[in-house]
């Protein structure tokens, strides 16, 4: 299959979902139920195309860095806006991830969303989302990336606020969109800095420009700033530390939406962007990214521990895992980061779909029991679902293991790789950098703890409420996606050796590109090993990259290889103790949760209220914005216009004293000058006393004044 055919296919893979969007928007009402089938089949077809592209790229064109093309979107006379699209290894893999999960979610929603009044609209919005996500995947320039970035934002707004009757849903949608927009603002500023210096949006031109040593405003800190700006876009989308507040609220949307968007694809877009432009980040930018990633991972892990809502726990776990991926990229673990992204996509989607099936079951049970007020998502109402929903339980258990990072699962491979990477990174950089691995390991431990807390409380033990007792397994279209995704979480798909992933095809395919930033501003340990055989895969020029063998790219890889086993032992130990703790507290109740809660009262409420971030933001940033806008609007309404009304009062007061007004119909005259003229006119008219002799006196006075005026 020639390159042209691949490029043609990649355009079709992009446009096919738009077809589903258009069909469902315009003919949705007529299709009704059928729109689900149409949507799912379109997505299946799309997945097939994506598979062929991925297969061809990874196999026949493995050595070619990127197959890409560019075309002119519009021209401004002297300057042409060039955009384009291309497939490189990580794009190919992402294509697979996005299309497969989207297809599975489409399948899942045929049942889950069944009976909803705006069923066709839901599929339309899913189609729009997939289209914009694929746009991000195949874009090879900043402008198109930004365009689809915003389109993804708007489709997530539409999907979160799908049940807009509920005010909380549309508020959540609005909150998501605005937080994303703040991130996009940073992203756009980053693009502006780069465009201004390198005059083009194309990645290859920008990277070539950086490689040639040309700095924005010719000082390197501006390149770091541009990097951080671009990263802000990722922070917005992937819900990193300061901008993470919208993801938990996004749970207002239907669960398949959460599964597709807020677990696997959209949130991963941020990580994908960082991976795509990894070569432009300077050392400081990378360490900034690392810190943000670690903080996110740690904070959201602590919050996830105390959540009671089934989906909220998963949401915070997603934020935490994203923190892991960003941290890994920040600490130079490019391949591990991306690897974790892919593996996380599968099992997190599975977790959410499982949650969906549980909630769906709870709904049916509540309908059955005519109890409409209890919350189907609250885990305290569940329990004992192991017996009533066997298949959901089994898949849920397996993917929880993967998430916790237990061997023989893909999660273990990727998380272990990251942890090893952080240890190596900290070792090489030293000093305060050790915080990162400490936080990483404790976050990993907490992940294991809260996942198993969830499984035990929800599935094990006796059903806590009648509703839980009446739940029963769902139909096939819900169970199949669960099974497929859990299978994909087996380690076997990524590397033969369950312990060490470096041998697998994944690590061969996803090779860390050589950073374009001049050596002076890079981490030295990321510099290519001049000793070892030259494996550099120069960014962007498409030279062939020799299959890895066991040569290390740079000192960091060498170091992380040393730390591999230590990291593995440590992570197993911590994960195991996390799981043990969870069983002790919830399964066998040796340590009563309430006493623990009481002892760490402060910490517990602090974590329960999501570290008061929402309140913090509301009281600071949003309150400040509202205050400024209210005062400016008041200022404009009263002061700028008010100069008129204010002075009108003053002059009217003076006016009334000096005599009855002419019935000035347009009283509030428009500006100060107008009022002054009106007022002075009032004074001048009093000269006209009507008495002829006073006239003559004034004339004589006039003559004298003129005379003196000109004599002196």
């Amino acid at each position, binding site marked *: 299959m020639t390159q042209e055919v691949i490029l043609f296919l990649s355009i079709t893979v992009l446009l096919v979902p738009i077809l589903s969007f258009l069909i469902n928007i315009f003919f949705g009402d007529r299709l009704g139920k059928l729109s689900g089938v149409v949507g799912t089949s379109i997505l299946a077809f799309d997945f097939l195309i994506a598979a062929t592209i991925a297969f061809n790229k990874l196999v026949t064109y493995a050595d070619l860095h990127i197959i890409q093309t560019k075309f002119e979107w519009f021209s401004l006379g002297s300057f042409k806006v060039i955009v384009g699209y291309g497939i490189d290894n990580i794009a190919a893999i992402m294509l697979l991830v996005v299309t497969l999960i989207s297809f599975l979610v489409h399948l899942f929603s045929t049942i889950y969303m069944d009976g909803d009044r705006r069923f066709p609209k839901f599929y339309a919005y899913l189609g729009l989302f997939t289209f914009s996500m694929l746009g991000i995947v195949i874009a090879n320039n900043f402008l198109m990336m930004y365009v689809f970035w915003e389109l993804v934002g708007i489709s997530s707004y539409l999907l979160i606020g799908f049940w807009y009757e509920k005010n909380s849903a549309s508020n959540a949608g609005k909150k998501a969109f605005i937080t994303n927009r703040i991130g996009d603002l940073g992203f756009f500023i980053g693009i502006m800095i780069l465009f201004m210096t390198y005059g083009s949006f194309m990645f290859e031109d920008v990277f070539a420009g950086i490689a040639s040593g040309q700095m924005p405003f010719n000082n390197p800190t501006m390149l770091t700033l541009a990097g951080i700006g671009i990263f802000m876009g990722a922070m917005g989308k992937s819900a990193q530390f300061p901008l993470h507040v919208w993801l938990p609220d996004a749970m207002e949307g239907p669960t398949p939406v959460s599964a597709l968007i807020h677990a696997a694809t959209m949130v991963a877009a941020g990580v994908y962007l960082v991976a795509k432009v990894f070569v432009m980040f300077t050392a400081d930018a990378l360490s900034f990214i690392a810190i943000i990633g670690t903080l996110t991972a740690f904070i959201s892990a602590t919050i996830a521990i105390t959540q009671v809502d089934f989906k909220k726990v998963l949401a915070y776990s997603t934020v935490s895992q994203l923190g892991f991926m960003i941290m890994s990229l920040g600490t130079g673990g490019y391949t591990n980061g991306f690897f974790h992204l892919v593996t996380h996509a599968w099992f997190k989607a599975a977790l959410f779909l499982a949650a969906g099936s549980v909630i769906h079951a709870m709904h049916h049970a509540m309908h059955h029991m005519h109890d409409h007020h209890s919350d189907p998502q609250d885990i305290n109402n569940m329990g004992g679902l192991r017996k009533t929903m066997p298949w959901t339980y089994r898949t849920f258990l397996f993917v929880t293991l993967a998430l916790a990072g237990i061997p023989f699962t893909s999660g273990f491979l990727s998380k272990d790789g990251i942890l090893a990477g952080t240890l190596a990174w900290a070792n090489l950089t030293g000093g305060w950098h050790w915080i990162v691995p400490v936080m990483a390991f404790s976050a990993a431990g907490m992940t294991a703890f809260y996942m198993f807390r969830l499984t035990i409380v929800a599935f094990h033990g006796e059903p806590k409420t009648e509703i839980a007792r009446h739940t029963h397994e769902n139909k096939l279209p819900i169970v199949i996606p669960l099974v497929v995704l859990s299978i994909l979480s087996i380690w076997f798909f990524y590397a033969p050796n369950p312990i060490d992933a470096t041998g697998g095809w994944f690590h061969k395919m996803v090779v860390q590109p050589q950073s374009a930033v001049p050596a002076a501003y890079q981490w030295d340990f990321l510099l290519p090993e001049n000793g070892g055989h030259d494996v550099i895969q120069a960014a962007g020029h498409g030279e062939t990259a020799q299959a890895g063998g066991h040569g290390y790219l740079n000192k960091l890889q060498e170091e992380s290889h040393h730390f591999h086993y230590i990291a593995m032992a440590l992570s197993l130990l911590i994960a195991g103790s996390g799981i043990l703790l969870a069983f002790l507290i919830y399964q066998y109740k040796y340590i009563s949760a309430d006493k623990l809660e009481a002892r760490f009262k402060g910490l517990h409420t602090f974590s329960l209220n999501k570290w008061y971030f929402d309140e913090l933001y509301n009281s600071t940033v949003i309150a400040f914005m509202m205050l400024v806008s209210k005062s400016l609007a008041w200022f404009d309404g009263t002061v700028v216009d008010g100069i008129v009304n204010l002075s009108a009062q003053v002059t009217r007061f003076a006016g009334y004293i000096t005599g009855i007004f002419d019935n000035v119909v347009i009283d509030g005259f428009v500006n100060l000058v107008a009022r002054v003229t009106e007022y*002075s*006119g009032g004074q001048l*008219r009093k000269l006209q006393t*009507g008495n*002829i002799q006073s006239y003559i006196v004034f*004339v004589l006075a*006039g*003559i004298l004044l003129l005379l003196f005026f000109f004599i002196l």
Partner: protein
Amino acid sequence: MTDISQFTGELLKSMGLFLPETTLIITFLVAIMADLISGKKHFAGYVVMAGLLVTAFFLMRQTGIESASFAGLLVIDPFGQFIKFIVLITTLLVIMFSFISKELHHSHAKLGEYYILMTGMVIGMFLLASSANLIMIYIAIETMSISSYILAGYTKEVKRSTEASLKYVIFGAVSSGIMLYGMSILFGLTGSLSLLEINTFLMNNSVESITLLLSGIMILAGFGYKISAVPFHFWTPDVYEGSPITITALLSVASKAAGFAVILRFFKVVFSAGLGSENVAWSIIGSIDWHFVIAVLAVLTMTLGNLVALWQTNMKRMLAYSSIAHAGYMLMAVAVLDNTGVAAVLIYFFMYMIMNLGAFLVVQLVADKLDSESIDIFNGLGYRSPLIAAVFTLFLISLTGLPPTAGFIGKLYVFSSVVNAGYLWLAVIGVLNSVISLYYYVRVIRNMYLRDIESTQPKLTFSVSALALVMLLAIPTLILGLYFSPVIEWANASIAIFTGH
């Protein structure tokens, strides 16, 4: 002793040049006779109209002549001719207004004296427009004033009218008294009454500037009274409100035109050392900066006229103040004291004549129909008589000076001459004044259209002759706004003020 035969030859030549005025005098006398013999109300009016038309004919034949006559008392030149045409046209129109004015019908059986006195006034204006001798100016102003005192008080039975004439007579007499005293001082200084000789005297020997300034300002008081410039304007609002509306129209245009003519001639002939009339700028002799004096007068007149007009509730009084403001705009052009200024005054005057007479005519028609002159009677006029309202809007917009109308061209030329002479501060004040003026003109439009929309009151219908007269004035206001080169060419041709060299 001048030799008698040489004198008679010169007299005959002068008489030849005096033809328009002679026809006027004949019409004056014939009108008196006609009024005695005929019974009809307006017979004298028709006679006078005929007389005026004949005068126009003779005036036409005088184009291009530039010479002194009657031993320097009178000067026949294109400038005088232009002003005389304006006076003629205004008087003809005012006579037509009087035919359809209800106000005059109520007052008297026969309007004989009305038309006779109007002819007297026209004679006075003609003389003033072309007199080049101090005493001749005084006599011309007196003729004009006396006839207008009486015309102002013509509707005797109306209290307001008599009060107007009393104020007018006292104010007029005092002003001309002061002017005369100023003239006597100037005569003392230069030893001659003729403007040309005064000029030659001032050119050759230097004179105390204080005395010259004193006499100049006192004379300016007399002229200022005629064009109602501030601070000599006090009579205008009361007299315009009191006297019949046709006379107000006549006063606001014709007597102002004569006033401006004498000011321009006085300053050009007496104070400018310009050799001929070809070079544009007049170099002013003597140490007094007359530019600044007139500029101050212009600013005072414009600003007071516009500011006080904001407060008026009576339509005639508002138009009085608006005419003061327009006098101010024209004074701006006079203050520049050069050829472009003169041209600007002439052009502005022609446009002012059309739009001002149009506005007065509409007010007359509406006031006659609704028996009141307050601004509020115009409420809902837009819907009660669409044509008259539309035409009145056109006149008001033209008075404000908005583009597609003649008023804009007038203002354009005045500002152009002021800017060209470098008086930017004066132009800015003028421009601000026209923004202020927008407010009280648009207030009338607002009453007409924005009030009492689709009003239920009965539709107002006007006689065909009234409508024809209105259109006669409305069409040029619009046409001249777009195609105005004939007026400019005529104005340019009549720049030449005879300075006797």
